[in-house]
């Protein structure tokens, strides 16, 4: 039992360490030298946020595809020449579409990403509310006859209980 616990703990520690080490750039970025630290920071931010169209689920910082290298180079030159973050993103999106940016813009088509979960929650809430209400409204009123019947049943039951208690004591 202790051994299992220890194994699990070390596994969790390794996982945490992996997460803490990230974001690790899969590619060698030594070649990209900057004079200004601000530009270097912007470059790193951009290549983590731009997605490689060839490899689909990697940023251009991670991918070793030729195309990712070309896009990194282009990003480097644009940043070096003083382009802002938005300018670089607009440049890439104009050529490769929204796909190239990991943060899709809020448009009519993508709005489902924002409102979808809220809509599902709202529908769930409505269903629950509705069912609770329905349960309450099904509590029926007893007619006079039924009330008398209930009263006799109850008195019979108490009489039986008393009888039982009398026998036991």
């Amino acid at each position, binding site marked *: 039992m202790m051994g299992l616990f220890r194994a699990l703990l070390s596994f969790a520690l390794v996982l945490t360490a992996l997460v803490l080490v990230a974001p690790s750039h899969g590619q060698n970025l030594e070649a990209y030298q900057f004079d200004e630290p601000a530009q270097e920071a912007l470059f790193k931010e951009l290549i983590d946020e731009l997605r490689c169209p*060839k490899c689909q689920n990697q940023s251009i910082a991670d991918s070793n595809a030729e*195309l990712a290298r*070309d896009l990194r180079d282009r990003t480097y030159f644009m940043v070096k020449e003083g382009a802002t973050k938005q300018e670089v993103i607009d440049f890439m999106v104009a*050529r*490769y*579409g*929204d796909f190239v940016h990991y943060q899709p813009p809020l448009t009519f088509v993508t709005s489902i990403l924002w409102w979808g979960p809220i809509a599902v929650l709202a529908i769930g809430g409505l269903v629950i509310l509705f069912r609770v209400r329905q349960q309450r409204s099904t509590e029926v009123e007893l007619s006079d006859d039924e009330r008398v019947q209930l009263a006799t049943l109850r008195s019979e039951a108490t009489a039986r209980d008393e009888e039982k208690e009398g026998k036991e004591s």
Partner: protein
Amino acid sequence: MSKGWRWAVLLLPLLAFIVLVGFLLRGLFSDPTELSSALVGKPVPQFSVPDLYQPEQQHTQAILQGQPMLLNVWATWCPTCRAEHAYLNKLAAEGVAIVGLNYKDDSRDKAVNWLNTLGDPYTVNLFDANGSVALEFGVYGAPETFLIDAQGQIRYRHVGDVNERVWRGELGERYRSLMQEFNATAEGTDS
């Protein structure tokens, strides 16, 4: 609980399920690597790039207008390009104007050698050594084929090889309708 309401409660989840199945089924048959081009409906980007055969000769975006044509992105390192080459030769023989964009090839000699042995279906051969022109076109692999109209506007992009099935499909359809339009206006100006 009224009867109609009960039916709705029964059928709504079924309906939702069917919609979900339809959505997921579509996903099964769609290719996630086939991205729609951001340039469709836009004029071809500006560029200046040397000719494949004559390094000193430069071509610009001006060559990509005047009649409907294809712009085919290819390279000798691309096996699918070899697969589609025979079909491009066939299209060229049928009179389809195809401009070739050689994309980041290993060497100029290799590309020229390829065209000498396999045939040259291209009306003009562009040599994009560092991929900068392809980047302007949003190319992310080879082969890719762009359909460009007489005004130099990008109308469609096909990713992957061009073959008989593709030419019968959307790419060919669009080319034929552009050609029809082009011929009609050409006749109009002649008379």
